Protein backbone atom coordinates (compact mmCIF):
# COMPACT_ATOMS: atom_id res chain seq x y z
CA UNK A 1 0.00 0.00 0.00
CA UNK A 2 0.99 3.61 -0.26
CA UNK A 3 3.93 4.78 -2.26
CA UNK A 4 4.41 6.74 -5.39
CA UNK A 5 1.55 6.63 -7.88
CA UNK A 6 -0.85 5.28 -5.29
CA UNK A 7 -4.29 6.76 -5.39
CA UNK A 8 -4.03 8.36 -2.00
CA UNK A 9 -0.73 9.94 -2.85
CA UNK A 10 -1.86 11.33 -6.17
CA UNK A 11 -4.99 12.63 -4.53
CA UNK A 12 -2.93 14.26 -1.80
CA UNK A 13 -0.68 15.90 -4.38
CA UNK A 14 -3.64 17.28 -6.29
CA UNK A 15 -5.30 18.32 -3.08
CA UNK A 16 -2.11 20.10 -2.09
CA UNK A 17 -1.96 21.85 -5.44
CA UNK A 18 -5.48 23.16 -4.95
CA UNK A 19 -4.77 24.26 -1.41
CA UNK A 20 -1.68 26.12 -2.56
CA UNK A 21 -3.53 27.63 -5.51
CA UNK A 22 -6.48 29.08 -3.60
CA UNK A 23 -4.62 31.95 -1.88
CA UNK A 24 -3.00 32.85 -5.19
CA UNK A 25 -6.36 32.70 -6.89
CA UNK A 26 -7.99 34.97 -4.34
CA UNK A 27 -5.13 37.44 -4.39
CA UNK A 28 -4.96 37.37 -8.18
CA UNK A 29 -8.69 37.96 -8.58
CA UNK A 30 -8.52 40.81 -6.13
CA UNK A 31 -5.52 42.41 -7.79
CA UNK A 32 -7.19 42.04 -11.15
CA UNK A 33 -10.12 44.14 -9.95
CA UNK A 34 -7.81 46.94 -8.79
CA UNK A 35 -5.83 46.88 -11.98
CA UNK A 36 -8.92 46.91 -14.09
CA UNK A 37 -9.98 50.07 -12.28
CA UNK A 38 -6.54 51.62 -12.80
CA UNK A 39 -4.90 51.06 -9.44
CA UNK A 40 -1.65 49.14 -9.30
CA UNK A 41 -2.03 47.54 -5.91
CA UNK A 42 1.51 46.66 -4.83
CA UNK A 43 0.35 46.55 -1.22
CA UNK A 44 -1.47 43.27 -1.72
CA UNK A 45 1.20 41.29 0.09
CA UNK A 46 0.56 43.48 3.12
CA UNK A 47 -3.18 42.97 2.80
CA UNK A 48 -2.65 39.23 2.65
CA UNK A 49 -0.50 39.05 5.72
CA UNK A 50 -2.94 41.24 7.60
CA UNK A 51 -5.70 38.86 6.52
CA UNK A 52 -3.63 35.87 7.55
CA UNK A 53 -3.03 37.27 11.00
CA UNK A 54 -6.52 38.58 11.66
CA UNK A 55 -8.07 35.53 10.08
CA UNK A 56 -6.14 33.26 12.35
CA UNK A 57 -6.98 35.39 15.34
CA UNK A 58 -10.68 35.28 14.50
CA UNK A 59 -10.77 31.56 13.89
CA UNK A 60 -8.64 30.75 16.91
CA UNK A 61 -10.61 32.75 19.43
CA UNK A 62 -14.06 32.06 18.04
CA UNK A 63 -13.45 28.47 17.01
CA UNK A 64 -15.23 29.16 13.74
CA UNK A 65 -13.47 29.07 10.40
CA UNK A 66 -16.13 31.25 8.90
CA UNK A 67 -15.58 33.93 11.47
CA UNK A 68 -11.88 33.60 10.70
CA UNK A 69 -12.49 34.23 7.04
CA UNK A 70 -14.64 37.18 7.96
CA UNK A 71 -12.02 38.77 10.19
CA UNK A 72 -9.33 38.05 7.61
CA UNK A 73 -11.29 39.72 4.86
CA UNK A 74 -12.12 42.59 7.19
CA UNK A 75 -8.45 43.14 7.98
CA UNK A 76 -7.61 43.12 4.28
CA UNK A 77 -10.35 45.65 3.67
CA UNK A 78 -9.06 47.83 6.49
CA UNK A 79 -5.60 47.96 4.97
CA UNK A 80 -7.14 48.52 1.57
CA UNK A 81 -9.12 51.41 3.00
CA UNK A 82 -5.87 53.06 4.02
CA UNK A 83 -4.45 52.44 0.58
CA UNK A 84 -7.60 53.78 -1.07
CA UNK A 85 -7.49 56.89 1.08
CA UNK A 86 -3.84 57.56 0.28
CA UNK A 87 -3.60 56.44 -3.33
CA UNK A 88 -7.08 56.90 -4.75
CA UNK A 89 -8.42 59.86 -2.82
CA UNK A 90 -5.18 61.77 -2.23
CA UNK A 91 -3.46 60.38 -5.30
CA UNK A 92 -0.19 59.43 -3.63
CA UNK A 93 2.25 57.24 -5.50
CA UNK A 94 0.87 53.73 -5.59
CA UNK A 95 4.21 52.00 -5.63
CA UNK A 96 5.56 53.91 -2.62
CA UNK A 97 2.46 53.32 -0.56
CA UNK A 98 2.09 49.72 -1.68
CA UNK A 99 5.61 48.81 -0.69
CA UNK A 100 5.34 50.76 2.55
CA UNK A 101 2.15 48.95 3.50
CA UNK A 102 3.69 45.59 2.74
CA UNK A 103 6.78 46.33 4.82
CA UNK A 104 4.76 47.77 7.67
CA UNK A 105 2.25 44.95 7.91
CA UNK A 106 4.83 42.21 7.63
CA UNK A 107 6.67 43.88 10.49
CA UNK A 108 3.59 44.59 12.53
CA UNK A 109 2.14 41.10 12.31
CA UNK A 110 5.52 39.61 13.19
CA UNK A 111 5.64 41.90 16.23
CA UNK A 112 2.15 41.00 17.32
CA UNK A 113 2.85 37.32 16.85
CA UNK A 114 5.99 37.66 18.90
CA UNK A 115 4.20 39.08 21.88
CA UNK A 116 1.10 36.95 21.53
CA UNK A 117 1.88 33.49 20.26
CA UNK A 118 5.60 32.90 20.16
CA UNK A 119 5.52 30.82 23.33
CA UNK A 120 2.51 28.73 22.50
CA UNK A 121 2.18 28.50 18.71
CA UNK A 122 -1.52 27.70 18.83
CA UNK A 123 -2.95 25.80 15.92
CA UNK A 124 -6.40 25.21 14.53
CA UNK A 125 -8.12 21.90 14.00
CA UNK A 126 -8.45 20.57 10.47
CA UNK A 127 -10.88 22.57 8.40
CA UNK A 128 -14.30 21.03 7.88
CA UNK A 129 -14.57 19.79 4.31
CA UNK A 130 -17.76 19.76 2.32
CA UNK A 131 -17.68 16.84 -0.08
CA UNK A 132 -19.65 17.40 -3.23
CA UNK A 133 -22.08 14.50 -3.53
CA UNK A 134 -21.21 11.95 -6.22
CA UNK A 135 -18.23 13.87 -7.55
CA UNK A 136 -16.36 13.33 -4.30
CA UNK A 137 -16.50 9.57 -4.91
CA UNK A 138 -14.49 9.65 -8.15
CA UNK A 139 -11.14 7.98 -7.54
CA UNK A 140 -8.17 10.36 -7.14
CA UNK A 141 -10.05 13.41 -8.40
CA UNK A 142 -12.88 13.07 -5.95
CA UNK A 143 -10.84 13.48 -2.78
CA UNK A 144 -8.47 15.91 -4.49
CA UNK A 145 -10.95 18.28 -6.06
CA UNK A 146 -14.30 17.78 -4.39
CA UNK A 147 -13.50 17.46 -0.72
CA UNK A 148 -12.54 20.94 0.28
CA UNK A 149 -13.72 23.59 2.63
CA UNK A 150 -16.75 25.35 1.24
CA UNK A 151 -14.68 28.51 0.78
CA UNK A 152 -12.72 26.78 -1.98
CA UNK A 153 -15.82 26.23 -4.07
CA UNK A 154 -16.82 29.79 -3.35
CA UNK A 155 -13.44 31.01 -4.56
CA UNK A 156 -13.89 29.13 -7.81
CA UNK A 157 -17.43 30.42 -8.07
CA UNK A 158 -16.01 33.91 -7.61
CA UNK A 159 -14.13 33.44 -10.88
CA UNK A 160 -17.38 33.01 -12.72
CA UNK A 161 -19.09 35.71 -10.75
CA UNK A 162 -16.34 38.08 -11.78
CA UNK A 163 -16.57 37.06 -15.41
CA UNK A 164 -20.23 37.89 -15.19
CA UNK A 165 -19.57 41.21 -13.51
CA UNK A 166 -16.96 42.21 -16.07
CA UNK A 167 -18.94 41.14 -19.10
CA UNK A 168 -22.52 41.69 -18.21
CA UNK A 169 -22.94 44.43 -15.68
CA UNK A 170 -22.77 48.15 -15.60
CA UNK A 171 -20.22 47.79 -12.83
CA UNK A 172 -17.94 45.94 -15.21
CA UNK A 173 -18.14 48.81 -17.67
CA UNK A 174 -17.46 51.29 -14.91
CA UNK A 175 -14.36 49.42 -13.78
CA UNK A 176 -13.04 49.16 -17.29
CA UNK A 177 -13.61 52.86 -17.87
CA UNK A 178 -11.98 53.77 -14.56
CA UNK A 179 -8.85 51.99 -15.69
CA UNK A 180 -8.78 53.03 -19.31
CA UNK A 181 -10.19 56.54 -19.33
CA UNK A 182 -11.31 57.76 -15.93
CA UNK A 183 -12.32 61.19 -17.22
CA UNK A 184 -14.86 59.55 -19.51
CA UNK A 185 -16.35 57.71 -16.57
CA UNK A 186 -16.48 60.88 -14.53
CA UNK A 187 -18.36 62.87 -17.12
CA UNK A 188 -20.73 59.96 -17.56
CA UNK A 189 -21.77 60.73 -14.01
CA UNK A 190 -19.97 57.96 -12.16
CA UNK A 191 -17.59 58.91 -9.40
CA UNK A 192 -14.16 57.64 -10.40
CA UNK A 193 -12.75 57.86 -6.91
CA UNK A 194 -15.64 55.84 -5.56
CA UNK A 195 -15.36 53.23 -8.28
CA UNK A 196 -11.66 52.83 -7.72
CA UNK A 197 -12.08 52.83 -3.96
CA UNK A 198 -14.60 50.03 -4.26
CA UNK A 199 -12.20 48.08 -6.44
CA UNK A 200 -9.34 48.54 -4.00
CA UNK A 201 -11.52 47.52 -1.07
CA UNK A 202 -12.56 44.44 -2.98
CA UNK A 203 -8.90 43.65 -3.55
CA UNK A 204 -8.27 44.03 0.15
CA UNK A 205 -11.14 41.71 0.97
CA UNK A 206 -10.00 39.05 -1.47
CA UNK A 207 -6.37 39.34 -0.40
CA UNK A 208 -7.38 39.18 3.26
CA UNK A 209 -9.48 36.14 2.53
CA UNK A 210 -6.57 34.58 0.68
CA UNK A 211 -4.31 35.26 3.64
CA UNK A 212 -6.86 33.83 6.05
CA UNK A 213 -7.20 30.72 3.92
CA UNK A 214 -3.44 30.37 3.78
CA UNK A 215 -3.11 30.62 7.55
CA UNK A 216 -6.23 28.77 8.66
CA UNK A 217 -6.68 26.07 6.05
CA UNK A 218 -3.29 25.95 4.36
CA UNK A 219 -1.16 25.98 7.47
CA UNK A 220 -3.56 25.85 10.37
CA UNK A 221 -1.58 28.48 12.22
CA UNK A 222 0.01 31.90 11.85
CA UNK A 223 3.71 32.54 11.81
CA UNK A 224 5.54 35.69 10.71
CA UNK A 225 6.04 36.17 6.95
CA UNK A 226 3.77 33.23 6.30
CA UNK A 227 2.58 34.66 2.98
CA UNK A 228 6.06 34.29 1.57
CA UNK A 229 5.54 36.41 -1.56
CA UNK A 230 2.09 35.03 -2.47
CA UNK A 231 0.81 38.57 -2.92
CA UNK A 232 3.50 39.39 -5.46
CA UNK A 233 2.61 36.23 -7.32
CA UNK A 234 -0.97 37.46 -7.27
CA UNK A 235 0.16 40.67 -8.98
CA UNK A 236 1.94 38.70 -11.66
CA UNK A 237 -1.08 36.47 -12.20
CA UNK A 238 -3.41 39.42 -12.48
CA UNK A 239 -1.18 41.18 -14.97
CA UNK A 240 -0.78 38.09 -17.07
CA UNK A 241 -4.48 37.47 -17.05
CA UNK A 242 -5.20 41.02 -18.23
CA UNK A 243 -8.76 41.25 -17.08
CA UNK A 244 -9.77 37.63 -17.58
CA UNK A 245 -10.63 35.84 -14.30
CA UNK A 246 -10.36 32.38 -15.85
CA UNK A 247 -6.74 33.04 -16.64
CA UNK A 248 -6.09 33.89 -13.03
CA UNK A 249 -7.59 30.54 -12.09
CA UNK A 250 -5.44 28.77 -14.66
CA UNK A 251 -2.32 30.57 -13.52
CA UNK A 252 -2.98 29.85 -9.86
CA UNK A 253 -3.48 26.18 -10.62
CA UNK A 254 -0.27 26.04 -12.63
CA UNK A 255 1.68 27.55 -9.75
CA UNK A 256 0.02 25.27 -7.21
CA UNK A 257 0.57 22.31 -9.49
CA UNK A 258 4.25 23.05 -9.85
CA UNK A 259 4.64 23.14 -6.08
CA UNK A 260 3.09 19.69 -5.85
CA UNK A 261 5.25 18.55 -8.72
CA UNK A 262 8.38 19.31 -6.70
CA UNK A 263 7.05 17.08 -3.94
CA UNK A 264 6.12 14.35 -6.38
CA UNK A 265 9.56 14.42 -7.94
CA UNK A 266 11.21 14.09 -4.56
CA UNK A 267 9.00 11.29 -3.40
CA UNK A 268 9.68 9.54 -6.67
CA UNK A 269 13.32 9.91 -5.81
CA UNK A 270 14.19 12.17 -8.74
CA UNK A 271 17.34 13.94 -7.67
CA UNK A 272 16.79 17.52 -8.74
CA UNK A 273 17.35 20.41 -6.34
CA UNK A 274 14.15 22.06 -5.29
CA UNK A 275 15.45 25.43 -6.48
CA UNK A 276 15.53 24.17 -10.03
CA UNK A 277 12.04 22.68 -9.91
CA UNK A 278 10.65 25.79 -8.36
CA UNK A 279 11.90 27.86 -11.26
CA UNK A 280 9.57 25.92 -13.53
CA UNK A 281 6.40 27.97 -13.07
CA UNK A 282 8.32 31.21 -13.55
CA UNK A 283 10.03 29.83 -16.62
CA UNK A 284 6.66 28.76 -17.96
CA UNK A 285 5.26 32.22 -17.41
CA UNK A 286 8.26 33.89 -19.03
CA UNK A 287 7.93 31.59 -22.00
CA UNK A 288 4.27 32.54 -22.26
CA UNK A 289 5.22 36.20 -22.14
CA UNK A 290 7.84 35.78 -24.83
CA UNK A 291 5.41 33.93 -27.07
CA UNK A 292 2.19 35.81 -26.44
CA UNK A 293 3.56 38.92 -24.82
CA UNK A 294 2.09 41.33 -27.30
CA UNK A 295 -1.30 40.86 -25.75
CA UNK A 296 -0.26 41.59 -22.21
CA UNK A 297 -1.18 45.24 -22.47
CA UNK A 298 -2.51 46.98 -19.40
CA UNK A 299 -5.20 49.59 -18.71
CA UNK A 300 -4.11 52.96 -20.03
CA UNK A 301 -4.53 54.81 -16.74
CA UNK A 302 -2.98 52.09 -14.57
CA UNK A 303 -1.05 53.68 -11.76
CA UNK A 304 -2.16 57.21 -12.56
CA UNK A 305 -4.28 58.92 -9.92
CA UNK A 306 -7.37 60.62 -11.21
CA UNK A 307 -8.06 64.23 -10.44
CA UNK A 308 -11.21 65.79 -11.79
CA UNK A 309 -10.72 68.67 -14.18
CA UNK A 310 -6.98 68.28 -14.35
CA UNK A 311 -5.37 68.35 -17.74
Amino acid at each position, binding site marked *: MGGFLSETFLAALLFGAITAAIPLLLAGLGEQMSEKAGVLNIGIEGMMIAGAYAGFLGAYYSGSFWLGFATGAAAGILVAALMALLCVRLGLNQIVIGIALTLGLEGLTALLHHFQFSR*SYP*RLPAAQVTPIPLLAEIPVFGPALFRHHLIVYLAVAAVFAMIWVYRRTQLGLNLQAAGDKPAALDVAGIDVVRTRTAAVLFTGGMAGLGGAYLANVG*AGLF*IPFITNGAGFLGIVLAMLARGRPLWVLAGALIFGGCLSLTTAAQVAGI*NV*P*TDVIQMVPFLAVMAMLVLFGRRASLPAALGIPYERGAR
Partner: protein
Amino acid sequence: ADVKSIAILTPEEGTDFGWNQQGVDAAKAAAEAAGIEAIVASGLGYGDVRPAMREIAADGASLIIAHASGYATSAPEIAAETNVPVAIVDSPQALKEGLVADYTLSGHQGAYLAGRLAAKMSKSKHVGIVVSGEPPSWNSQSAGFAEGVKAENPDVKITYAVIGPAAYSDAAGGRRVTESVIAAGADIIFGQGNGSSFGMLQAVETTKTADGGKVLFIDVIGDKTSVAKDFLLSSVVWDITPVYSAMIQDLKDDTFGTKRYAIGLADDSVKLLKTDQIPDDVWSEIQKIREQIIAGDIKVEPTFEASAVRTLMTDVSADAK
Protein backbone atom coordinates in the same frame (compact mmCIF):
# COMPACT_ATOMS: atom_id res chain seq x y z
CA ALA B 1 41.75 35.81 30.54
CA ASP B 2 39.04 37.67 32.25
CA VAL B 3 35.57 36.82 30.94
CA LYS B 4 32.89 39.38 31.73
CA SER B 5 30.14 38.63 29.27
CA ILE B 6 29.19 36.50 26.32
CA ALA B 7 26.99 37.59 23.47
CA ILE B 8 24.91 35.41 21.22
CA LEU B 9 23.61 36.41 17.79
CA THR B 10 20.78 34.47 16.23
CA PRO B 11 19.05 34.97 12.91
CA GLU B 12 15.55 34.58 14.27
CA GLU B 13 13.82 35.28 17.53
CA GLY B 14 14.64 32.89 20.33
CA THR B 15 11.11 31.61 20.54
CA ASP B 16 11.07 28.90 17.91
CA PHE B 17 11.37 25.81 20.12
CA GLY B 18 14.38 25.08 17.95
CA TRP B 19 17.79 26.23 16.86
CA ASN B 20 17.49 29.86 17.87
CA GLN B 21 15.78 29.27 21.17
CA GLN B 22 18.23 26.53 22.07
CA GLY B 23 21.16 28.86 21.39
CA VAL B 24 19.74 31.73 23.38
CA ASP B 25 18.67 29.57 26.30
CA ALA B 26 22.02 27.79 26.40
CA ALA B 27 23.97 31.03 26.31
CA LYS B 28 21.93 32.37 29.18
CA ALA B 29 22.37 29.17 31.16
CA ALA B 30 26.10 29.00 30.55
CA ALA B 31 26.54 32.63 31.50
CA GLU B 32 24.53 32.21 34.64
CA ALA B 33 26.52 29.18 35.63
CA ALA B 34 29.72 31.16 35.14
CA GLY B 35 28.29 34.17 36.91
CA ILE B 36 28.70 36.47 33.91
CA GLU B 37 26.41 38.52 31.73
CA ALA B 38 24.69 37.20 28.61
CA ILE B 39 23.96 39.63 25.75
CA VAL B 40 21.26 38.40 23.39
CA ALA B 41 20.86 39.73 19.86
CA SER B 42 18.15 37.71 18.20
CA GLY B 43 16.16 38.07 15.02
CA LEU B 44 19.11 39.56 13.12
CA GLY B 45 18.16 37.84 9.90
CA TYR B 46 20.49 36.35 7.33
CA GLY B 47 21.80 39.61 5.92
CA ASP B 48 24.79 41.67 6.99
CA VAL B 49 25.37 41.20 10.72
CA ARG B 50 28.73 42.92 10.82
CA PRO B 51 27.22 46.10 12.28
CA ALA B 52 25.69 44.20 15.18
CA MET B 53 28.93 42.30 15.81
CA ARG B 54 31.06 45.41 15.72
CA GLU B 55 28.77 47.11 18.12
CA ILE B 56 28.66 44.23 20.54
CA ALA B 57 32.43 44.00 20.35
CA ALA B 58 32.69 47.70 21.05
CA ASP B 59 30.35 47.29 24.00
CA GLY B 60 32.92 45.00 25.55
CA ALA B 61 31.66 41.46 25.09
CA SER B 62 34.29 38.89 25.91
CA LEU B 63 32.95 36.36 23.43
CA ILE B 64 30.63 36.60 20.47
CA ILE B 65 28.74 33.47 19.60
CA ALA B 66 27.62 33.71 15.99
CA HIS B 67 24.84 31.18 16.09
CA ALA B 68 24.10 30.67 12.39
CA SER B 69 26.09 29.13 9.59
CA GLY B 70 25.39 32.31 7.66
CA TYR B 71 27.53 34.25 10.12
CA ALA B 72 30.59 32.08 9.67
CA THR B 73 32.22 34.37 7.15
CA SER B 74 31.66 37.65 8.89
CA ALA B 75 32.36 36.64 12.49
CA PRO B 76 36.04 35.67 12.04
CA GLU B 77 36.55 38.89 10.10
CA ILE B 78 35.13 40.90 12.94
CA ALA B 79 37.24 38.90 15.37
CA ALA B 80 40.36 39.81 13.43
CA GLU B 81 39.25 43.43 13.24
CA THR B 82 38.23 43.92 16.87
CA ASN B 83 40.22 41.22 18.62
CA VAL B 84 37.12 39.89 20.30
CA PRO B 85 36.92 36.07 20.21
CA VAL B 86 34.08 34.55 18.24
CA ALA B 87 32.53 31.14 18.10
CA ILE B 88 31.06 30.01 14.79
CA VAL B 89 29.30 26.99 13.39
CA ASP B 90 29.70 24.83 10.31
CA SER B 91 33.31 25.83 9.68
CA PRO B 92 35.43 23.11 11.31
CA GLN B 93 38.64 24.28 9.61
CA ALA B 94 38.36 27.87 10.78
CA LEU B 95 40.07 27.61 14.14
CA LYS B 96 42.35 30.44 15.19
CA GLU B 97 43.96 30.50 18.53
CA GLY B 98 42.47 32.96 20.95
CA LEU B 99 40.14 34.27 18.33
CA VAL B 100 37.97 31.79 16.47
CA ALA B 101 36.49 28.52 17.62
CA ASP B 102 34.08 26.28 15.82
CA TYR B 103 31.21 24.41 17.34
CA THR B 104 29.73 22.68 14.37
CA LEU B 105 26.87 20.84 15.91
CA SER B 106 25.35 17.73 14.67
CA GLY B 107 22.62 15.73 16.20
CA HIS B 108 23.32 12.85 13.84
CA GLN B 109 23.80 10.41 16.69
CA GLY B 110 20.52 11.40 18.18
CA ALA B 111 18.89 11.32 14.75
CA TYR B 112 20.22 7.80 14.30
CA LEU B 113 18.49 6.81 17.51
CA ALA B 114 15.35 8.50 16.29
CA GLY B 115 15.60 6.49 13.09
CA ARG B 116 15.83 3.27 15.08
CA LEU B 117 12.85 4.38 17.12
CA ALA B 118 10.82 5.27 14.06
CA ALA B 119 11.54 1.98 12.33
CA LYS B 120 10.45 0.11 15.44
CA MET B 121 7.27 2.12 15.84
CA SER B 122 6.09 2.49 12.26
CA LYS B 123 3.06 0.37 11.58
CA SER B 124 3.04 1.06 7.86
CA LYS B 125 6.76 0.36 7.64
CA HIS B 126 7.14 3.68 5.95
CA VAL B 127 8.56 6.83 7.49
CA GLY B 128 9.00 10.32 6.11
CA ILE B 129 11.61 13.02 6.41
CA VAL B 130 10.41 16.54 5.73
CA VAL B 131 12.86 19.45 5.81
CA SER B 132 12.39 23.14 5.12
CA GLY B 133 15.71 23.47 3.34
CA GLU B 134 19.02 21.70 3.13
CA PRO B 135 21.53 23.36 5.46
CA PRO B 136 24.36 21.13 6.71
CA SER B 137 22.96 20.55 10.19
CA TRP B 138 19.62 19.42 8.76
CA ASN B 139 21.44 17.17 6.29
CA SER B 140 23.51 15.35 8.88
CA GLN B 141 20.44 14.60 10.92
CA SER B 142 18.44 13.49 7.89
CA ALA B 143 21.26 11.12 7.00
CA GLY B 144 21.62 9.89 10.59
CA PHE B 145 17.92 9.25 10.77
CA ALA B 146 17.90 7.33 7.49
CA GLU B 147 20.84 5.22 8.60
CA GLY B 148 19.08 4.44 11.85
CA VAL B 149 15.94 3.35 10.04
CA LYS B 150 17.91 1.21 7.69
CA ALA B 151 19.92 -0.39 10.49
CA GLU B 152 16.79 -1.20 12.40
CA ASN B 153 14.81 -2.63 9.51
CA PRO B 154 15.93 -2.42 5.89
CA ASP B 155 12.37 -3.05 4.76
CA VAL B 156 11.10 0.23 6.11
CA LYS B 157 10.63 2.72 3.35
CA ILE B 158 11.83 6.31 3.67
CA THR B 159 10.30 9.21 1.83
CA TYR B 160 12.35 12.39 1.79
CA ALA B 161 10.90 15.76 0.84
CA VAL B 162 12.20 19.32 0.88
CA ILE B 163 9.60 22.06 1.10
CA GLY B 164 11.51 24.57 -0.96
CA PRO B 165 14.35 27.00 -1.04
CA ALA B 166 14.42 29.27 1.98
CA ALA B 167 11.11 27.88 3.15
CA TYR B 168 11.85 28.42 6.82
CA SER B 169 8.63 30.35 7.31
CA ASP B 170 6.48 28.48 4.83
CA ALA B 171 4.13 26.83 7.29
CA ALA B 172 1.52 26.16 4.62
CA GLY B 173 4.17 24.51 2.48
CA GLY B 174 5.28 22.41 5.45
CA ARG B 175 1.78 21.20 5.94
CA ARG B 176 1.14 20.52 2.29
CA VAL B 177 4.33 18.56 1.74
CA THR B 178 3.89 16.59 4.96
CA GLU B 179 0.36 15.65 4.00
CA SER B 180 1.64 14.34 0.68
CA VAL B 181 4.30 12.30 2.42
CA ILE B 182 1.70 10.86 4.76
CA ALA B 183 -0.49 10.08 1.78
CA ALA B 184 2.44 8.27 0.24
CA GLY B 185 2.21 5.93 3.20
CA ALA B 186 4.42 7.31 5.95
CA ASP B 187 3.05 7.18 9.49
CA ILE B 188 6.01 8.76 11.27
CA ILE B 189 7.43 12.09 10.17
CA PHE B 190 10.89 13.27 11.06
CA GLY B 191 10.59 16.98 10.58
CA GLN B 192 13.14 19.77 10.52
CA GLY B 193 12.28 23.37 9.89
CA ASN B 194 11.80 26.56 11.83
CA GLY B 195 8.39 28.14 11.37
CA SER B 196 7.50 25.54 8.81
CA SER B 197 7.82 22.71 11.33
CA PHE B 198 4.62 23.95 12.94
CA GLY B 199 2.96 23.36 9.60
CA MET B 200 4.36 19.82 9.63
CA LEU B 201 2.98 19.31 13.12
CA GLN B 202 -0.36 20.55 11.93
CA ALA B 203 -0.35 18.03 9.09
CA VAL B 204 0.55 15.23 11.46
CA GLU B 205 -2.23 16.20 13.81
CA THR B 206 -4.92 16.58 11.18
CA THR B 207 -4.12 13.77 8.75
CA LYS B 208 -4.74 10.09 9.26
CA THR B 209 -2.85 7.28 7.65
CA ALA B 210 -4.53 5.34 4.86
CA ASP B 211 -6.00 2.88 7.35
CA GLY B 212 -7.20 5.60 9.65
CA GLY B 213 -4.32 5.37 12.10
CA LYS B 214 -2.51 8.09 13.93
CA VAL B 215 0.59 9.79 12.52
CA LEU B 216 3.43 10.72 14.85
CA PHE B 217 6.06 13.41 14.65
CA ILE B 218 9.70 13.42 15.60
CA ASP B 219 11.07 16.89 16.14
CA VAL B 220 14.62 18.17 16.42
CA ILE B 221 16.64 20.43 18.72
CA GLY B 222 13.84 21.68 20.98
CA ASP B 223 11.13 20.18 23.10
CA LYS B 224 7.71 20.92 21.68
CA THR B 225 5.85 18.83 24.24
CA SER B 226 4.10 21.90 25.54
CA VAL B 227 2.60 22.69 22.15
CA ALA B 228 2.08 19.22 20.62
CA LYS B 229 1.62 16.70 23.35
CA ASP B 230 -0.44 13.99 21.70
CA PHE B 231 1.36 13.61 18.42
CA LEU B 232 4.94 14.14 19.42
CA LEU B 233 6.72 10.79 19.38
CA SER B 234 10.07 12.18 20.30
CA SER B 235 12.61 14.86 19.58
CA VAL B 236 16.33 14.92 19.02
CA VAL B 237 16.91 17.43 21.78
CA TRP B 238 20.07 19.45 21.86
CA ASP B 239 21.61 21.11 24.82
CA ILE B 240 24.35 23.52 23.84
CA THR B 241 24.98 24.72 27.40
CA PRO B 242 27.99 22.43 27.94
CA VAL B 243 29.52 23.73 24.73
CA TYR B 244 29.19 27.34 25.76
CA SER B 245 30.39 26.58 29.27
CA ALA B 246 33.44 24.90 27.81
CA MET B 247 34.10 27.97 25.68
CA ILE B 248 33.94 30.21 28.70
CA GLN B 249 36.33 27.92 30.49
CA ASP B 250 38.70 27.86 27.54
CA LEU B 251 38.67 31.62 27.39
CA LYS B 252 39.62 31.75 31.05
CA ASP B 253 42.34 29.20 30.43
CA ASP B 254 43.55 30.96 27.29
CA THR B 255 42.94 27.83 25.27
CA PHE B 256 40.08 29.22 23.22
CA GLY B 257 40.40 28.56 19.54
CA THR B 258 42.52 25.48 19.91
CA LYS B 259 39.74 23.00 19.68
CA ARG B 260 36.35 22.38 18.25
CA TYR B 261 33.27 21.74 20.24
CA ALA B 262 30.67 19.18 19.56
CA ILE B 263 27.58 17.78 21.06
CA GLY B 264 26.80 14.14 21.40
CA LEU B 265 24.98 11.43 23.21
CA ALA B 266 27.77 10.84 25.71
CA ASP B 267 27.20 13.94 27.82
CA ASP B 268 23.50 14.14 27.08
CA SER B 269 24.02 17.28 25.05
CA VAL B 270 22.16 15.34 22.42
CA LYS B 271 19.41 13.09 23.62
CA LEU B 272 16.19 11.57 22.56
CA LEU B 273 13.11 12.96 24.23
CA LYS B 274 11.03 10.43 26.10
CA THR B 275 7.33 10.96 25.59
CA ASP B 276 4.21 9.10 26.58
CA GLN B 277 3.95 7.81 23.02
CA ILE B 278 7.01 5.61 23.42
CA PRO B 279 6.32 2.24 25.09
CA ASP B 280 8.74 1.42 27.87
CA ASP B 281 10.15 -1.68 26.20
CA VAL B 282 10.97 0.23 23.05
CA TRP B 283 12.53 2.97 25.10
CA SER B 284 14.82 0.55 26.90
CA GLU B 285 15.93 -0.96 23.60
CA ILE B 286 16.74 2.52 22.39
CA GLN B 287 18.72 3.18 25.53
CA LYS B 288 20.77 0.10 24.82
CA ILE B 289 21.58 1.30 21.34
CA ARG B 290 22.58 4.61 22.87
CA GLU B 291 25.07 2.82 25.10
CA GLN B 292 26.47 1.03 22.07
CA ILE B 293 27.02 4.29 20.24
CA ILE B 294 28.70 5.85 23.23
CA ALA B 295 30.84 2.79 23.58
CA GLY B 296 31.81 3.04 19.93
CA ASP B 297 30.26 -0.27 18.97
CA ILE B 298 27.97 1.55 16.56
CA LYS B 299 29.57 4.23 14.44
CA VAL B 300 27.48 7.06 13.10
CA GLU B 301 29.27 9.51 10.78
CA PRO B 302 27.81 12.88 9.90
CA THR B 303 26.95 13.58 6.26
CA PHE B 304 26.68 17.27 5.45
CA GLU B 305 26.23 17.58 1.69
CA ALA B 306 22.74 17.76 0.34
CA SER B 307 23.54 15.62 -2.68
CA ALA B 308 25.02 12.90 -0.48
CA VAL B 309 21.91 12.93 1.66
CA ARG B 310 19.70 12.64 -1.39
CA THR B 311 21.72 9.75 -2.72
CA LEU B 312 21.34 8.06 0.61
CA MET B 313 17.59 8.50 0.47
CA THR B 314 17.31 7.09 -3.00
CA ASP B 315 19.44 4.18 -1.89
CA VAL B 316 17.36 3.61 1.14
CA SER B 317 14.14 3.70 -0.83
CA ALA B 318 15.60 1.36 -3.43
CA ASP B 319 16.58 -1.08 -0.70
CA ALA B 320 13.07 -1.07 0.59
CA LYS B 321 11.63 -2.32 -2.69
